[in-house]
């Protein structure tokens, strides 16, 4: 059971960080800094490791550090792994980022005062998650000072064991959590849930903290490397809305169910069998890229018929594309970030992509 969580916590993105040319004052220009960034971490936390590398070449002045990928300023409060999954559809290794020490884009990015800003952003997200799960933030607000420090340090250092020890005091078990125990040994096939598998007899309802990042493409692509680059935050819809689980007898709430509930417009659910749906609408609409031997999503979307104007191209969580029929509770329990949010990147193919005219 611990396996998946361990992999997530140990996951890291190799970064190659280049100083922006406008801030290079020496010749030859400094080499880029190479650093492994924890997936569950945040970019500003890397600054103490990066700065020494460029110190001698920086122009005089006060540091206001920010990162950028292909011209897009990176939002520092989004976990590094999520930024990578979202902006680097075809994973780039190492991921080439540009760092700036001057000229903070304060009209786009919230100010960052270093580790403290990141820590409080994390804690506020944790409070929000706690509110979603329990209906109040009391457990987080009442944390002792030492516990709070311990919690933050465990995240900062990527120490899963320490994290689990402190976070268990918060009692943030999510709805449907019972499933995870049942699935420890089995394969991830949809299973019928019976009333008596749950020892406590609870109804499996509740709210789950989810942050969804959705972007659309108007032209189909078969290879990830042909996917268009996201060059503006306006192209991404950020949906910070909890998934509501209403435990239904005999039904397992899957990852697909969860995504559907947040994007209902594009999933007209019809109870068609696999054969029926593909015959009626033709094979083309159901095809999804699977050339790299990655997850084959086609059988998942066939049972849920996408509406005319959208098709799910990609659902990526912690760098993987899980089969959509996996029970959602397992996904949440194992792939969530330390602040108890599950971050999901979704790419939809739509017939027409409209970009709002103002920024």
């Amino acid at each position: 059971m611990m396996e998946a969580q361990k992999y997530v916590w140990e996951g890291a993105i190799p970064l190659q960080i280049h100083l922006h040319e406008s801030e290079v004052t020496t010749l030859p220009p400094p080499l880029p800094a190479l650093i492994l960034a924890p997936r569950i971490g945040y970019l500003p936390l890397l600054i103490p490791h990066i700065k020494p590398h460029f110190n001698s070449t920086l122009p005089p002045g006060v540091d206001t550090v920010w990162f950028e990928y292909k011209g897009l300023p990176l939002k520092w409060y989004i976990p590094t792994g999520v930024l990578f999954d979202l902006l680097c559809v075809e994973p780039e290794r190492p991921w080439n980022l540009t760092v700036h020490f001057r000229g903070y884009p304060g009209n786009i990015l919230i100010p960052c005062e270093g580790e403290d800003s990141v820590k409080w952003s994390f804690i506020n997200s944790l409070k929000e998650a706690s509110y979603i799960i329990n209906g109040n933030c009391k457990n987080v607000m009442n944390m002792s000072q030492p516990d709070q420090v311990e919690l933050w340090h465990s995240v900062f250092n990527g120490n899963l064991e320490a994290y689990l020890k402190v976070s268990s005091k918060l009692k943030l078990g999510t709805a449907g959590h019972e499933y995870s125990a049942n699935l420890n040994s089995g394969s991830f096939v949809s299973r019928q849930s019976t009333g008596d598998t749950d020892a406590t007899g609870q109804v499996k309802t509740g709210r789950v903290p989810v942050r969804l990042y959705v972007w659309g493409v108007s032209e189909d692509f078969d290879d990830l490397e042909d996917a268009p680059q996201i060059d503006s935050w306006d192209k991404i819809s950020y949906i910070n809305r909890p998934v509501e689980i209403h435990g239904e007898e005999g039904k397992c709430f899957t990852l697909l169910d969860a995504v559907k509930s947040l994007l209902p417009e594009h999933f007209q659910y019809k109870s068609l069998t696999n054969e029926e749906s593909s015959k009626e609408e033709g094979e083309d609409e159901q095809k999804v890229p699977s050339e790299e031997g990655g997850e084959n999503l086609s059988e998942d979307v066939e049972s849920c018929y996408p509406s005319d104007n959208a098709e799910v191209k990609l659902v990526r969580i912690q760098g993987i594309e899980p089969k959509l029929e996996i029970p959602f509770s397992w996904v949440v329990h194992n792939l969530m970030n330390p602040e108890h949010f599950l971050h999901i990147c979704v790419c939809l193919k739509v017939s027409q992509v409209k970009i709002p005219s103002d920024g």
Partner: protein
Amino acid sequence: MDISSWDGTISLAEFHVAARALVEKWKRVSSASPPWSWVSCPKQPWVASHEVEGYLSLENIILVSIKEEHDELLSFPQKEETSCSDKEESIDIATLVQSQSDRDEICYYDLHIVYSASYRVPVLYFRVYYSDGEPLEFEDIKKHLPAHSAKTLLDSKWTFITQEEHPYLKRPWYKLHPCGTGEWMKLLFQGDVSLARNGAAIEVYLISWLSFVGQVVGLRIPYEMLNQL
């Protein structure tokens, strides 16, 4: 609505009802002051459009700075060339000003009320800027806030008012933390038996909420707003 078992939170649909009620009543009661308006949000084609999404907006207003020792409400004749000059022609409780900043200038507030799906309550977002549009530094905003807010800020720097991304405008705005909202809304309504009885709780929810939350930034609600329907 069963007040006794209610947790003080509202659904998105209820927020819309409450928002309409606020807009209408505000217009009726204080027609001289700038109106709250509903701003609908255009969405990407892939986001659910069957749900109306938007927020309440009150922009370009000047707020009184309340001193704890005594209330000094001065009228300040407006001679701005900007478009907001029309709105400030008549004196209204919400727009009286007392100049305090070092820059000795009037500063303007934009207030947005946005629904939070996580907390299931309204959340206040605001920004403060000078007449030329330049945003105030946080230190200067603190000077403009009522004294009790400034004190709370000192005690809870990171958890009371924070800068966050506006959910719709995607720009940095100040936000009032919604953690306790459900609880004190429940308390507010439990104290008022008549509300529970006539079932008009939702209609006055936002107005009651605003009368509470507005105090943080110094927005005063005309007394008539708080009368029962």
